[in-house]
């Protein structure tokens, strides 16, 4: 069996969608049925045995002649059977479904319910009464409009982000060189079929999964699949049981870096290893974002409050003798009044503002809700290659003259401190520059050296750049010392040799060699010290060993360099034969060692330490080797200084690992092969007991398992990565972060956020912004919810006390969708109260966006004061117009009777219906204005949750603008001509504006005292009960 285990008998996985519609339907159905089983299947490791087969068996299995390939007819047949060699694009939901998700998701549902209830109430009323107040109809309509507008708004926001995504896509069609019927032909990659014999050369993209038949110096870059930063050499030999490690398999969509190879296609399209990962990614179900969970929790709370109030007053109104029908209308009215109409828009705008701010800092957020997720993140699982590191080999250390020199590895490396005038350095640099097949691609003179692209092997390129930067232009050096012969590097020799004409004496040659240090040392009988040759001694050999171990222990790849000035008998014109060596190649002179690594990005260590101080655990999950992984982890601080793994401790104390006290070990490096044998409890143990974890040699499936493990422990997990191998984990994570420049399309598709500059440090910005918006949303919601009480209580007292309605629906809408809007949004601009990067991530279980304390504060305390302010204004206006408070109780039925036009006030005057209604609407206006006035104070107290306003200051300009705007709007609504007809708002006397001011002042003073007590007695009762 090949790739997909038992899948071959059924319809092939990557069925061509364009075959026949009937077939498509059938496969779709089957696929859906098997989808769940498939995901479990895909999560397992790749199982294949093609790499173990001999060429004959291979030929038989795919019934293909390995020299002539398929006949074109047969290839065609297979193409029709299996479908084209492409990845099935992830199922994208149609635009209208995306739109509907915006319209009916989360918060919107609450508003839709409210809207529906309004229409229901209106329906009931119009059925039983002839003349109906149209309030409910309007309210229902406006609620619907609010949802639709906010829905459209967030839909357009997200389309905008995804449009930026589209532009990343690479549209260039790829070609492959296939042997069919004995002839080499170029075909489109999508037409490559199973069993095709394919030829690839350096620079090509591998067109399908290949089992190699032959190879010449072939190297492939598997970094997008396995995360290994170094190119891997490929040959036809079976070298490892693991198909991902064996040398004779090349994988679809990886790159051939150099050399040529010929191979048989063993899997195409979705059956390829890459395809399996892509299908795994698109098949994963993703959990809710933390903010969605929070909003759901909030809706629960609000609904509970609404139901409680509604049912209580339903009962009360029945007891008070209202009819069933009226009581039902009241019930609906109360429930709807609890819906914060403006909050959906406020939350959306706040999130959008943050998303924009983050986009300016190069964090592109694909999904608005993901804006906050980073703030809640408690664990970051980061890929190494390309995320933490620069994904290019760079020279880091040199060892010559018995000294280790460090090279500058920053992205913009300009020069390195190399001792001037050292002759050894002069020779070493020449060997590195000349015995080197890498070269710069043309036309890049304007770019800095570090940014130029090169041809050839990664380590040779690293040497080339290094010499170019620190010594002299390599091209000139090569011009002066033309190469006359060369033995290229191969895995058996483990060295590379070249012979050049000498610059100072153009008649003689020099032999230059580089390679694995131990091999190089074998060739040498002397060594260079300060430009002088000395015979090799044990002291030198020991130094060499130490240096080699030291550099190797840093996870670096070490190369040795040596040379030999050929005697004059091999002068110019001598024909060097590299096959049958006709020149001396021993007793060379050892020059030095150069080591290189894919170095960490400059900003990463700082970012990691910031994450750590913010209480976020940073875990490295990489496909690379443990030593390299550990070295980088130490370099960037994922394993912090002074922390040792069990192996380190064992080595230091010279005791077996089993004797190391496990409880003292905080750091661990887990190998993929160990991980494979762990069950989930053991994985949980590892994740729980260690603060500094590195997972090395992990497969994409294992990355997924690690993410799931973290989530199982209750963490909110962010995953960063750029390769295809990261994409399942990216998708499964609470927030997947892909790299914008180096990231593969698959990873970008799976991610929720994209770092446009590939800078890991941007994550810190994201965390900061996410935490800030969470805090500020709390404030915003607290502000918005507070005015709910002065909005609901008039209706409740209208029912209970039978007083004329103090505040009408229109005025409520003017508050929720008018005056409260900008101030609530302005709280999103509020700066943090303390260093939010110094505290632990919030606990998603206990630290909710909206909790009982927030509701208690908003509804129970500040809201109550606000309601009193409104009622005071209301009673003042009615009393000053002739209706004293005592006479108002129970007046409702008479007041509302439109045929009772001689209602008597407390002074014996008589009022027509319309006259008293004007007074009532004046009261509504005044109540509305009072709410605006107490909301001033509310806005100012909501700026901070712990600090005093005097500490926080009034630097938020938008907030000041909001204060002015709501006041102006209130004045406009009250005094603008025509408002009496349009919104039934009436002009107020100046004194009526002042009624609420004492209450406004009270709110401010009360909350300042409350916050003072909270600051003075941290952890005290008041904090436990009122700090939200």
């Amino acid at each position, binding site marked *: 069996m090949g790739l997909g285990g038992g899948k071959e008998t059924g319809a092939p996985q990557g069925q061509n969608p364009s075959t026949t519609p009937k077939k498509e339907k059938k496969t779709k159905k089957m696929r859906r049925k098997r989808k769940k089983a498939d995901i479990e299947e895909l999560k397992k490791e790749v199982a294949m045995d093609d790499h173990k087969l001999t060429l004959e068996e291979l030929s038989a299995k795919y019934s293909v002649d390995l020299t002539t390939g398929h006949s074109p007819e047969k290839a065609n047949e297979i193409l029709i059977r299996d479908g084209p060699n492409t990845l099935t694009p992830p199922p994208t939901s149609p635009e209208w479904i995306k739109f509907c998700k915006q319209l009916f998701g989360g918060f919107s549902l609450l508003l839709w319910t409210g809207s529906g209830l309004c229409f229901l109430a209106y329906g009931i009323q119009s059925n039983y009464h002839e003349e109906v107040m149209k309030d409910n109809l309007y309210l229902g309509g406006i609620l619907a409009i609010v949802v639709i507008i906010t829905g459209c708004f967030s839909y357009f926001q997200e389309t905008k982000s995804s449009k930026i995504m589209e532009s990343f896509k690479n549209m260039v069609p790829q070609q492959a060189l296939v042997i069919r019927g004995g002839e080499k032909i170029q075909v489109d990659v999508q037409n490559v079929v199973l069993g095709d014999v394919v030829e690839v050369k350096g620079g090509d993209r591998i067109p399908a999964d290949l089992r190699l038949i032959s190879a010449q110096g072939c190297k492939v870059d598997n970094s997008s699949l396995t995360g290994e930063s170094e190119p891997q050499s490929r040959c036809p030999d079976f070298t490892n049981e693991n198909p991902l490690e064996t040398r004779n398999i090349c994988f679809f969509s990886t790159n051939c870096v150099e050399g040529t190879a010929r191979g048989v296609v063993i899997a195409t399209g979705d059956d390829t290893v890459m395809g399996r990962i892509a299908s795994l990614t698109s098949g994963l179900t993703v*959990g*809710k974002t*933390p903010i969605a*969970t929070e909003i759901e929790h909030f809706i629960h709370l609000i609904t509970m409050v609404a139901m409680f109030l509604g049912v209580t007053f339903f009962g009360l109104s029945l007891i008070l003798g209202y009819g069933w029908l009226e009581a039902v209308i009241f019930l609906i009215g109360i429930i709807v009044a609890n819906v914060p109409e403006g909050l959906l828009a406020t939350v959306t705008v706040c999130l959008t503002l943050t998303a924009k701010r983050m986009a300016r800092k190069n964090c592109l957020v694909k999904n608005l809700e993901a804006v906050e997720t980073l703030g809640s993140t408690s664990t970051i699982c980061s890929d190494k290659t390309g995320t933490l590191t620069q994904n290019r080999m760079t020279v880091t250390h040199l060892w010559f003259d018995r000294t280790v020199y460090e090279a500058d590895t920053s992205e913009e490396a300009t020069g390195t401190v190399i001792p001037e005038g050292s002759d050894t350095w002069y020779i070493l640099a020449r060997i590195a520059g000349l015995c080197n097949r890498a070269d710069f691609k043309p036309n890049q003179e304007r770019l800095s050296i570090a940014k130029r692209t090169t041809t050839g092997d990664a380590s040779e390129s690293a040497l080339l750049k290094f010499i170019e930067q620190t010594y002299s232009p390599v091209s000139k050096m090569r011009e002066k010392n033309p190469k006359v012969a060369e033995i290229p590097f191969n895995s058996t020799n483990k060295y590379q040799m070249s012979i050049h004409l000498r610059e100072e004496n153009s008649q003689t040659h020099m032999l230059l060699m580089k390679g694995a240090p131990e091999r190089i040392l074998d060739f040498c009988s002397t060594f260079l010290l300060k430009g002088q040759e000395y015979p090799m001694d044990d002291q030198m050999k020991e130094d060499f060993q130490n240096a080699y171990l030291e550099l190797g222990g840093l996870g670096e790849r070490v190369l040795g360099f040596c040379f030999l000035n050929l005697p004059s008998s091999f002068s110019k014109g001598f024909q060097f034969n590299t096959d049958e060596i006709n020149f001396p190649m021993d007793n060379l002179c050892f020059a030095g060692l150069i080591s290189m690594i894919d170095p960490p990005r400059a900003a990463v260590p700082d970012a990691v330490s910031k994450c750590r101080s913010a209480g976020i655990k940073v875990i490295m999950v990489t496909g690379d080797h443990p030593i390299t992984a550990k070295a980088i982890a130490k370099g960037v601080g994922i394993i912090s200084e002074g922390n040792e793994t069990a192996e380190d401790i064992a080595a230091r104390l010279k005791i077996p690992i089993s004797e190391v006290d496990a409880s003292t070990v905080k750091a661990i490096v887990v190998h993929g092969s160990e991980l494979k044998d762990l069950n989930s409890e053991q994985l949980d143990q590892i994740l729980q007991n260690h603060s500094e974890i590195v997972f090395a040699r992990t497969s994409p499936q294992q990355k997924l398992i690690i993410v*799931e493990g973290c*989530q*199982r422990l209750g963490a*909110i997990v962010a995953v960063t990565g750029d390769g295809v191998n990261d994409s399942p984990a990216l998708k499964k994570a*609470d927030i997947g972060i892909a790299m914008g420049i180096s990231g593969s399309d698959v990873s970008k598709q799976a991610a929720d956020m994209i770092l446009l500059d590939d800078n890991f440090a941007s994550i810190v910005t994201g965390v900061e912004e996410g935490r800030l918006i969470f805090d500020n949303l709390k404030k915003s919601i607290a502000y918005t919810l507070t005015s709910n009480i002065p909005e609901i209580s008039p209706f409740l007292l209208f029912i209970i006390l039978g007083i004329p309605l103090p505040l009408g629906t229109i005025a409520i809408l003017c508050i929720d969708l008018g005056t409260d809007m900008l101030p609530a949004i302005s709280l999103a601009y509020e700066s943090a109260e303390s260093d939010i990067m110094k505290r632990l991530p919030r606990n*998603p279980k206990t630290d909710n966006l909206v909790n009982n304390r927030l509701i208690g504060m908003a509804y*129970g*305390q500040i809201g*109550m*004061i606000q309601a*009193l302010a409104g*009622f*005071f204004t209301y*009673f*003042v206006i009615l*009393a*000053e*117009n*002739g209706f*004293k*408070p005592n006479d108002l109780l129970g007046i409702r039925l008479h007041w509302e009777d439109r*045929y*009772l*036009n*001689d209602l*008597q*006030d*407390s*002074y*014996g*005057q*008589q*009022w*027509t*219906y*319309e*006259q008293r209604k*004007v*007074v009532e609407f*004046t009261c509504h206006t005044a109540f509305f204005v009072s709410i605006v006035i107490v909301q001033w104070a509310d806005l100012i107290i909501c700026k901070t949750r712990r600090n005093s306003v005097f500490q926080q200051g009034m630097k938020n300009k938008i907030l000041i603008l909001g204060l002015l705007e709501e006041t102006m709007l209130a004045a406009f609504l009250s005094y603008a001509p025509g408002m009496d007809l349009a919104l039934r708002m009436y002009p107020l*006397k100046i004194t009526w504006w002042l009624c609420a001011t*004492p209450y406004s002042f*009270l709110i401010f003073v009360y909350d300042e005292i409350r916050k003072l007590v909270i600051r003075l007695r941290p952890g005290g*009762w008041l904090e436990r*009960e009122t700090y939200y």
Partner: protein
Amino acid sequence: MTKKEKKSFNQSMSEWKLFLYNPTTGEFLGRTAKSWGLILLFYLVFYGFLAALFTFTMWVMLQTLNDEVPKYRDQIPSPGLMVFPKPVTALEYSFRASDPASYEEYVKELKKFLKPYALEEQKNLTACPDGVLFDQKGPVYVACQFPISLLEGCSGVNDPDFGYSLGNPCILVKMNRIIGLKPEGTPRIACVSKDENIAAVETYPADGIIDLKYFPYYGKKRHVGYRQPLVAVQVLFVPNNPGKEVTVECKIDGSPNLKSQDDRDKFLGRVMFKITAHA
């Protein structure tokens, strides 16, 4: 977040029970008795303080009010017009002359309403000079007599059924009281029947004159015994044309400062009612 398995019904029930009362921690609805006590005490004190504050501000506000005249009267610059008796719902009267029960309620109410207007009830009131505003300086304010005889056939003196039994029902029209209102000119209430073929109307006093001596009004407290001037409208259905309904409209006329036309307020200086006389 990892997916949680759906809780079974029993599990969620026991969770609820634990929430209601948790015997191990002694928590009732998520709080211990002490915690409940503290939070209730907090809110008791808090609301007690708020109630006291509210009461205080209300008290201060009430101190600023004048007992005799409201602070503002600009909301009622012009009086409304209203009929009496007021039907339960809309201003639609219906009766059957042959069926006393059908108008019993109206008659009862009219009698009750006119009781203060009886001669002996007005004994202590002043007979004021006709045709001029009766300005008073106080501190004692007197009320002018309104002789019920002005209502003639609708006074209830001669006809205890106010014309209902004869098919010519009486309805009282009155102008709303407004403190300090001084009508200009010679205000009268002019009533017209919308269809003279069905019914004619007769107003008492003649022409629906409202004498200026009843103005201005000084308010319930100062102006004790004030009798609101009334105008009676008798709807005279054309005989042999029973089972008809007629709409009557009354308006204030003859006074330039009393409005009788407003788009919104259908009762400002006017009133319209419908009477159905069943066969």
